[in-house]
């Protein structure tokens, strides 16, 4: 069907990435979008980012970096879905 084919062509599958606090400072950016890849875990997605952008990005996989997906803290083996909002941040220090 033509309609379905057009729909598939224009739907850009994306993941939104957010960086906070010292991670944001280190990377020099607070957000970016990347293409969605099916069956990819947060760990794999993040390793891909480091390979692409360089050693500075290793901070994303530091042991104390917290991962959130759609504003909820998650484990690194979570499989990312199209349209997800993923955030990387250091341990929180509010209050």
């Amino acid at each position: 069907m033509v309609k379905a084919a057009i729909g598939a062509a224009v739907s850009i599958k994306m993941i939104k990435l957010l960086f906070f606090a010292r991670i944001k400072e280190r990377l020099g950016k607070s957000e970016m979008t990347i293409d969605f890849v099916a069956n990819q875990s947060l760990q794999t997605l993040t390793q891909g980012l480091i390979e692409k952008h360089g050693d500075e990005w290793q901070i994303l996989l530091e042991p104390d970096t917290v991962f959130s997906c759609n504003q909820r803290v998650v484990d690194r083996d979570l499989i990312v879905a199209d349209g997800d909002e993923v955030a990387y941040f250091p341990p929180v220090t509010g209050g």
Partner: protein
Amino acid sequence: MSDHNSALQHTTADIHILVQSEPFDLSDEMLQLQNSVDQQDQEVGAISSFTGQVRSAEEDQSAMDKSGQLLALSIEHYPGMTEKSLLETCQLANKRWPFKACRVLHRVGYLTVGQPIVLVLVAASHREQAMKACEFIIDHLKTAAPFWKKAIFENTAEWVETKSSDQLAIKRWQE
């Protein structure tokens, strides 16, 4: 009246979460808390509050020695997730220590020494509920809500490190 409250109260508790850069006034907040309860009934017997403010020695002493006097904190947060996290914390507190109403205010931006950072206000029938819920909320806020403090010294600025005492504080609620 029993100290054990009905399931009804879990759903009727009035929870307000505010993340703002503006200062807050304790009496005003107290009044708003009271008003939100008055719309339900007159059964509040206890109101507990906790205010956290910027100390001049927010960082550990060694950091201060090399960086000069602390001037301010710069507080950043994750809009959207912060409010969601604080609401969940309040709902969790309400399950364990049923209360009538609660207000959580957290400031962001540049806050000088002596300025208030956070306010937790809880109104309940009895003092145990109000005080425990207040403690529970501040303890959980410190380890769960996505806020980050940067300490601004005379000569430098650095991100505040997580305190191990905050991690310990949260553990006692899991017993």
